């Protein structure tokens, strides 16, 4: 069991990267890209809804 824990903590992970909090920079970047894409999707959805409404009239 102790051996298992020893090997586990020996596995390299981005510990320092996460410890100083910088991972939030990456989340912010991803977030901006995601928000941008979703905003565009919503814009398209609205635009098509408007066209559909005009076509029905």
């Amino acid at each position, binding site marked *: 069991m102790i051996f298992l824990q020893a*090997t*586990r*903590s020996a*596995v*390299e*992970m*981005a510990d320092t990267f*996460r410890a100083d909090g910088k*991972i939030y920079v*990456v*989340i912010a970047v*991803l*977030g901006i890209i*995601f928000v941008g894409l*979703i905003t565009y*999707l*919503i814009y*398209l*959805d609205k635009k*098509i809804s408007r*066209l*559909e409404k005009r*076509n029905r009239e």
Partner: protein
Amino acid sequence: MKAWKITGIILVAYSMYAGLTFDVPRLVILNETIRNLYFHVPMWFTMIALLGNSLIQSIRFLRSGQEGRKVNLSLDLKAKNFAEVAMLFSLLGLFTGMIWAKATWGTYWTSDPKLNGTAVTLLIYLAYFVLRSSIEDLEKKARLSSVYNVFAFVLMIVFIGILPRMTASLHPGNGGNPAFSNYDLDDGMRMVFYPAVFGWILIGWWISLIRHRLDILKKEK
């Protein structure tokens, strides 16, 4: 804005945040790339869900002409649009998988049965689009491609879901070991993985519907 669209956005946003910050198992070779599970694998789940709906729409189209009723061509169009967006997701899955493979298996492409099965699946659906564009008559096009779509879906399941499980594969869950067993996915990861899958399916569905509504508008013009 429909509630299901908002649900999709929230689930994917949550999976991006949780997927980068929550604890993950420490495994050799994989290291932090284990987090790719939250982003790479949902692409495939989304592809299968969209192709599943494409199949349903094709079957609905084939049934719509029965008993003297008028055929509903828009059902076939919907099948095409869902298949089209599904192929976008399969390409995303393929390219993200190649990057992950380079880091963990040491090469972008191996003759892993799942990889080759995916390549064959892409060709099968490429043939579906080629078939569609090669027939002028709208009703004939819809009927032939709907029948082909049923075959294509079955072949996709065989090539991606069945054959890789019967031989040795580098992918987890193949070559005899069950996928997403306790060895592969711990409970903490499930709490991120399943919302990610569900969220991406909703977003894929949304894109497919937008694509479809555009086609319908063009047809009415």
